[in-house]
């Protein structure tokens, strides 16, 4: 039962990834060629909604999590180069296979062979990062 909210939230997220067509290779290429407002509209309205939601959570400070804790926004670890170079490498892959990790998971649920191959690749890439992590600029 403790995990039910996460299962429901994840299901909603996976559903929207498909219905928004953010998981479509065509839409991602169209975005990188600035041929449609669709993906930019999704990103901008998602950020605006997230920003507003977080501001409201802060404003109503008495609101607690489901476990009764007070809400604290997790902070990203300090760093600069890892964010830029990591982003670049991820982006290079994204511009070819047209999938970022969210859509990879939801397309696996659709039974896509291509997404399954991308997931296998992503797991290997993640492990490779763990292997060479200490030799990289962070």
């Amino acid at each position, binding site marked *: 039962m403790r995990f039910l909210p996460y299962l429901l939230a994840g299901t909603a997220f996976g559903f929207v990834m498909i219905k928004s067509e953010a998981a479509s290779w065509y839409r991602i290429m169209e975005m990188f060629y600035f041929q449609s407002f669709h993906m930019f509209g999704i990103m901008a309205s998602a950020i605006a909604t997230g920003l507003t939601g977080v501001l409201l959570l802060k404003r109503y400070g008495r609101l607690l999590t489901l476990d009764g804790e007070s809400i604290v926004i997790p902070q990203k670890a300090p760093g600069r180069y890892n964010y830029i170079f*990591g982003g*670049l490498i991820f982006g290079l892959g*994204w511009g070819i296979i047209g999938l970022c990790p969210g859509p990879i998971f939801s397309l696996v649920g659709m039974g896509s062979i291509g997404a399954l191959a991308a997931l296998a690749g992503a797991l290997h890439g993640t492990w490779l990062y763990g292997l060479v992590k200490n030799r990289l600029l962070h």
Partner: protein
Amino acid sequence: MNTLFAWLHAPWPWYVSGPLIGLMVPLMLWIGNRSFGISNNLRHMCAIAQPKSVGVDFFHYNWREHNWSLVFAAGAVLGGFFAGIVFANPQPVELSVAALTMFSYWNVPIGGGFLPPVLFDFTWLSVIVMFAGGVMVGFGTRYAAGCTSGHAITGLSTLQPQSLFAVLGIFAGGLFSAHFITPHLFSLFW
């Protein structure tokens, strides 16, 4: 009832799906002070799979503390099943004319569906390309400690400068490969 089903089968416009994605940020905070993001699960899956004899420290931690995250990812798979199989959209993606022209120029046939069969159906070539691209996505997201959800959505909507660096890197990388690699893939291999 028919209207509801028609709506569940149809693709959703950006002004419906965008805000729903954005709501994930306050929702995950409210559920349990979690940062909305999905790519960390790739690390947890490696941590589960790595045998004790393999000593890559990055995967030595108690992944069971992140069960909530793995459950979220399982939900994303389930959501994909519902949206893509149960409530499948029978129509092809309604792309812009510019994009359709470009894809025909690239020699990528627009099938009836959501994904180009040439990349997503089973052939050894497509599997190799998707795997190789996946390696970059997996390596890059862990190096940058997040992907589109964790940085572009969560990071930017909580005003974290690190995420802005990541997003700039992601977009620059994507622009480069989409313009200078992807079009040539099709003329070289297919």
